[in-house]
């Protein structure tokens, strides 16, 4: 089994309608039931982010996202699938249920 990250591309935060949220919940239940579900979650707005650089003697904390962009990751799934064909099918279903475009990306060497 390999693991994949499905990131949800969005341009507004907390914008999911009640209907979309219900569809996502249903999809998450199905993922778990089929043994594909690892983790899923929604993210707060990029403006709530803090960039942390702990490489120096003292950590540096900077307010805001590291990159200003029109689109950002609004939420994500980590799924388990035997290969890309299954992962693509699940990503397409995820996109349909949350009503947003998603990016599908494999984890390294899993």
């Amino acid at each position, binding site marked *: 089994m390999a693991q994949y990250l499905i990131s949800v591309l969005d341009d507004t935060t907390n914008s999911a309608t009640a209907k979309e949220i219900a569809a996502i919940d249903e999809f998450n239940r199905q993922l778990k039931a089929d043994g594909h579900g690892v983790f899923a979650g929604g993210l707060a707005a990029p403006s709530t982010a803090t960039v942390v650089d702990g490489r120096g003697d003292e950590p540096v904390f900077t307010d805001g996202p590291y990159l200003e962009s029109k689109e950002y990751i609004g939420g994500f799934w980590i799924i388990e699938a*035997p290969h*890309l*064909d299954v992962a693509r099918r699940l990503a397409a279903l995820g996109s349909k249920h949350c009503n947003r475009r998603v990016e599908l990306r494999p984890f390294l060497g899993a």
Partner: protein
Amino acid sequence: MTDVQEVITRVHRAEWARVVATLARRFGDLDLAEEMAAEAFATAVAHWPVAGVPPNPGGWLTTTAHRKAIDRLRREAKREEKHQEALMLSHPPEPRGVIDDDRLRLIFTCCHPALAMEARVALTLRMVGGLTVAEIARAFLVQESAMSRRITRAKAKIKAARIPYRVPLREDLPDRVSGVLAVLYLIFNEGYLASDPAKEAVRGDLTAEAIRLTRLLHELLPTDGEVAGLLALMLLTEARRPARVSASGELVTIDAQDRSRWDRALIAEGHALVRARLASGQAPGRYQILAAINAVHTDARDARDTDWSQVVALYDQLLRLDPSPIVRLNRAIAIAELDGPQAALAEVDRLPLANYHPYHATRADLLRRLGRRQEARAAYDRAITLTGNTAAAAYLIRRRDQLGEP
């Protein structure tokens, strides 16, 4: 000596995909499969002229490549102390019965929709076609290093994203087959149309390669109508190649071609495929309809004998599957023969194809036939500016100049 080299070339063409595909399944690694197949062929080049060609060259190559792969894995295992992994991979070769499926697996993997189109094309020509990276780079006019990176990136994505090495599930098959056909048709057209004049020297190689790969796919999926349709379409198009460009390098349109120069053997083979599809009674797809249109053209001994009503009927059928302006343009060309240039022009003028050179070439011809010389000249000018093909430009310039002084 020369005989052996010819044998090696022939064996390379016939067996490359099989050797790569078998190794890819056994070791689960396209890189290793490609490298060891190449090494096995290099060994053949060194040994066969001395020791003679083995009775079963394909089997010899597969076995040699397989041994080399095991040696490589053992060496790496020793070095990296991953002995366990190598032992796991070096299971004995499986029986030969499933080998044809391996080539199909290889084709579907190289043409996987998760890869960019240009990566699919390059990977298919390298892994299935056995062309060298240098040959592929030359055909597509890019630096060898850039082509090499393109292929390496594609293989890395297959590995990292776990693109499966398998024939797709039944419900995905039609979609995935049409993806493979798109790759093969693109390779064929790249060779046939050669929009870049500098590519013309190698374009014959690409059409021949596309036909060879489509033949292989047809062998592996004999009941797939669209595979048969694309093969027929390629054969019937390729058959006209000897008459398509004049001695002076000018494009010759189908109505003016010397039909005695058409390749009768290719036409017979293409017609047989089209007839078999018609007899199947199944609804034809895009490639089968295009093949049928080409069958009508190549059926006529003289351009005047062309059954234009049949051509229009086939385009109507195609429009129901693909209502694109390019199909409508081609239908309009047939309408001109059936109902005259005025009816055709009315169709053509409605099409949003202002940047497509055949659109302007078609308009120019229709306007010329209607005696509207000024407008015809402007349309020829536009078509000449837009075409990147020297043979087409030469034809259009002559037609424009035949209009006489403005």
